[in-house]
C-alpha cells in the first residue's frame, strides 16, 4: 500500500511537471516568440484556459503527500522553508501576470506583466529543478526527522550544504532547458506563422541545452549518489524508464527538424515522464534521503499514514481522478486546435 501511494504521489508530481511545465515553458519563451501585441496574446491564449487547472496538480499532489506521508510533508516543507515560500511568491506573480495583463489596455501595463510572467516562469523552472536536485542529493535530516537548509552556503556538495550548490544548480538548468523546449513545442503546436516558426527554432536550440546539461547531470548524479543505480541493478526492468527518457530526447530533435510539432511535444512529454520516473525509481523506497546518516532517511515505511486512511484514500482518489481526467479531456477538446485570437475585450 505504501508503495502504491509512492507511485501515486510520483504520478501526480509528474503530471504537474508535464502540464504546468508547458505553461512555464511558454512563459520562458513569451518575450522571445511574441514581438507584437497580437503575437503575445497568442501565447497567452494558448495557455489561458488551462494553466489554472494545470497548476492544481501541484496542490493535489501536495495534499496527497500530506495525508499519505505526513512526516515527509512536514519535514520537507519546513526544511525547504525559504525556497518554498519564494516558489509561492513566484507562482503568485506568474498567475497574476496571466490574469491581470489583459485587464488594462495600456502598453506599459502589458509590458510590465509580460516581464513578470516571463521572469517568474524562468525562476520557477530553475527552482523546481533544484528542488529535485536536493531530494536526489539528500538533506541533513536529524534523528527527529527534521532539517533546515539555507538558500546557499558555499555552493559545494557537503552534508551541511544549502538548497543551491553546484549539483542542484545543474539540475535547475536541466529543468530550465527541458521546460523551455517543452513549452516551445506546445506553442509551436498551438500556433501558426511567425510565432510557430520562432518557437520551433527555440525548441531546436534548447534541445542542445537539454542534451549537454542532462549528460553533466547524469554524470554528477552517478558520482554523488551512486546508490541511485542500486534499485536498477536489483530490478533491471526499471531500465525501461531511462530508455523511455532517451527515446523522448531523440524524438524531440527528430520531430523538431521534421516540423512535426505534436510529435515533438509528445516526445518532450515522454522525456520528462521518463526522467522523473527514473529518479523516483532510483529513490525508492526513500522519500527524502538524509545526507548525514542513512538511518535518518525518511522512507515510505517510516512515514506512511495508517492503513485505514490509505485504503479509504484510494477509493476517493480514484473517483476524483476519473472526474478530473474527464474535465481535462473535455476542456482540452473544447480548446483544441490552433489558437484563434478572440476580440480585444474577450480572452487574454
Amino acid at each position, binding site marked *: 500500500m505504501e508503495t502504491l501511494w509512492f507511485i501515486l504521489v510520483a504520478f501526480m508530481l509528474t503530471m504537474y511537471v508535464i502540464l504546468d511545465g508547458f505553461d512555464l515553458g511558454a512563459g520562458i519563451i513569451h518575450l522571445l516568440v511574441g514581438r507584437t501585441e497580437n503575437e503575445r496574446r497568442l501565447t497567452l491564449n494558448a495557455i489561458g484556459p488551462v494553466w*489554472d487547472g494545470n497548476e492544481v496538480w501541484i*496542490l493535489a499532489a501536495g*495534499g*496527497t503527500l*500530506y*495525508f499519505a506521508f505526513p512526516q515527509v510533508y512536514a519535514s520537507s516543507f*519546513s526544511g525547504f522553508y525559504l525556497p518554498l515560500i519564494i516558489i509561492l511568491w513566484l507562482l503568485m506573480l506568474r498567475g497574476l501576470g496571466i490574469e*491581470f495583463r489583459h485587464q488594462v489596455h495600456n502598453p506599459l501595463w502589458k509590458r510590465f506583466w509580460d516581464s513578470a510572467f516571463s521572469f517568474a516562469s524562468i525562476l520557477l523552472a530553475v527552482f523546481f529543478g533544484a528542488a529535485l536536485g536536493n531530494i536526489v542529493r539528500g538533506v541533513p535530516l536529524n534523528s527527529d526527522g527534521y532539517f533546515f537548509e539555507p538558500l546557499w552556503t558555499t555552493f559545494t556538495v557537503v552534508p551541511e550544504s544549502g538548497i543551491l550548490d553546484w549539483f542542484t544548480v545543474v539540475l535547475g538548468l536541466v529543468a530550465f532547458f527541458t521546460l523551455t523546449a517543452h513549452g516551445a513545442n506546445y506553442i509551436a503546436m498551438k500556433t501558426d506563422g511567425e510565432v510557430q516558426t520562432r518557437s520551433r527554432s527555440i525548441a531546436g536550440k534548447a534541445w542542445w541545452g537539454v542534451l549537454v546539461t542532462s549528460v553533466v547531470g547524469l554524470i554528477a548524479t552517478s558520482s554523488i549518489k551512486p546508490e541511485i543505480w542500486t534499485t536498477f541493478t536489483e530490478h533491471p526492468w526499471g531500465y525501461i524508464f531511462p530508455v523511455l527518457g532517451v527515446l523522448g530526447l531523440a524524438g524531440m530533435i527528430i520531430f523538431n527538424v521534421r516540423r512535426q510539432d505534436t510529435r515533438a511535444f509528445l516526445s518532450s512529454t515522454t522525456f520528462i515522464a521518463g526522467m522523473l520516473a527514473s529518479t523516483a525509481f532510483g529513490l525508492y523506497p526513500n522519500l527524502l534521503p538524509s545526507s548525514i546518516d542513512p538511518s535518518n532517511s525518511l522512507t515510505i515505511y517510516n512515514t506512511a499514514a495508517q492503513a485505514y*486512511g490509505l485504503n479509504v484514500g484510494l477509493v476517493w482518489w480514484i473517483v476524483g481522478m476519473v472526474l478530473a481526467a474527464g474535465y481535462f479531456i473535455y476542456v482540452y477538446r473544447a480548446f483544441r486546435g490552433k489558437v484563434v485570437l478572440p476580440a480585444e475585450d*474577450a480572452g487574454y
Partner: protein
Amino acid sequence: MEDALLINRLQFAFTIMYHYLFPQLTMGLGLLIVILKGLSLWKKDERYNVSARFWAKIFAINFAVGVVTGIPMEFQFGTNWAKFSTFAGGVIGQTLAMEGVFAFFLESTFLGLFLFGEKKLGQAGHFAAAFLVFLGSWVSGYFIIATNAWMQHPVAYAIASDGSVHVNDYWGLLFNPWIGWQYTHNMIGAVITAAFVMAAVGAYYLLANRDAEYGKIFIRTGVVAGAIASLLVAFPTGDGQVQNVYKHQPVTFAGMEGLFETKEGAELMLIGQPDMEKLRMDNPLYVPKLLSFLTHYRWTAEVKGLQAFPRDEWPTNVPLLYYSYHIMVGLGTIFIAIMLVSVFLLWKRKLYATRWVLWILMLAFPFPYIANTAGWMTAELGRQPWLVYGLMRTADGISPTVSAGNSLFTLLGFLGMYFVIGVLFLLLVIKKINQGPESGAATH
C-alpha cells in the same frame, strides 16, 4: 521560541484573513451569478444575461486573487506548522487533499469555460458551467470547514504509537457534528457579502444617474438575497453554531460572552470592556438573564463563567475574542435592519427613489467583510490555546527548525506583496464598475 511562535501565528493570521476576503465573494457571487443566469434563461430577458456577464468579469478578477493567495495556505501547514502536520496529517491531510482533487479541478476547469466559452457552449451549457463553478467553490468550502471543524472538535481518530493521530472513521470525519452549522453559517455569511457588494454597485449606478436599468437589477437581486441570508445567518445557523460552542467549548463560550463568574440567570452582555486584571466587565450594558434563556431556554439556568475553568485553558486573548464575537453579532443585527428596510421599500416600489437608503446600501459593502473576518477570528481565537482542541496546543505545533528570523522575512514579504495585490485589485474592480455592464457586451 516565543518569537517564532508569535511570528508564525501572525503570518498565518494575516495570510488567511487576507485570503478569505476573496473566497467569500467568490462563493457568494457564484450563487448570485447562477441566479442571474437562471433568470435570463427563464424570463428570456437579455438584461439578466448582460448582468451575469458583468459580474463574471469581477468574479474573474476576484477568483484570480483568491487562487494566488490561497496557494500559501495549504503550504503553510507544512512550512510553518510542521509539528502540527506530522501530528494531524493522517486526518486533515485527507480533507485537504480531497479539496484539491474534488473542488479545485472542477472550479479551475469550468471557470475557463464559463469566462471564455459562452459562444461554444450555448446558453444552457453556459448556465451549466456557471453552476459547476459555483458548485466547485462550495465543495471547496465544505472541505475547508471539515478541516477546521476537526480542529475545533476532533472526532473519528485514533492515536498511533508515535503519538500522531489517524482517521479511523471516514464518514465520521466528513460528517463531524460540528460541520453542519459552521458550514451553513459560513456559506450564508459569504452570500451576505456578495449581496451587499451587488446592491452597492446597483445603488452607485442609481445615485450616479447611469446604467439605471442594471442598477435596479443589481439592487433587487442583492437586497432579496441579502434579506434572506441576513436572517438565516442569525437563525438558525448562528444560533446553532453558538449552541455547538457552548456544548463542546464552554470556556470559549464564556470568553466570547464576556462572562467571568458562573451564574444562575446569566446576563447577555451587549457592550463593555473585559478587564483582565480585575476579571470583570467595565462599563457593562447588558440584558439580565437573557444568556441563560438563550442557552437553556430557562431564565434561571446556570451558565459557567471563565473562572470555573483553570486559567491555562482560557482562550489566550479573551478581550480580542470578546470583541470579535460582539462585532460580528452587532454587524449582523445591523445587516438585518438594513436589508429588511430595503426589502420593504422594494415591495412598496419606493426603493429606487429613496436616496438615503441607496446611500446606505452603497456605503455598507465593507461591513460584511468585517463581520465575516470577525466571525473567523471568533472561531480561531476561541480555540486557543489549542491548535487541535484538547489534543495539541498551538505552541507545540510550529516547525522546529525554522528560525524566527526566517519567518519574519517571509511575513514581511507577504505584507508587501499583498499590499500591492490589494491596490491592483481595487484598481481593476473600480475600472470594471466604471466601464459599466454594457461595455464589451457586443463582442460576445
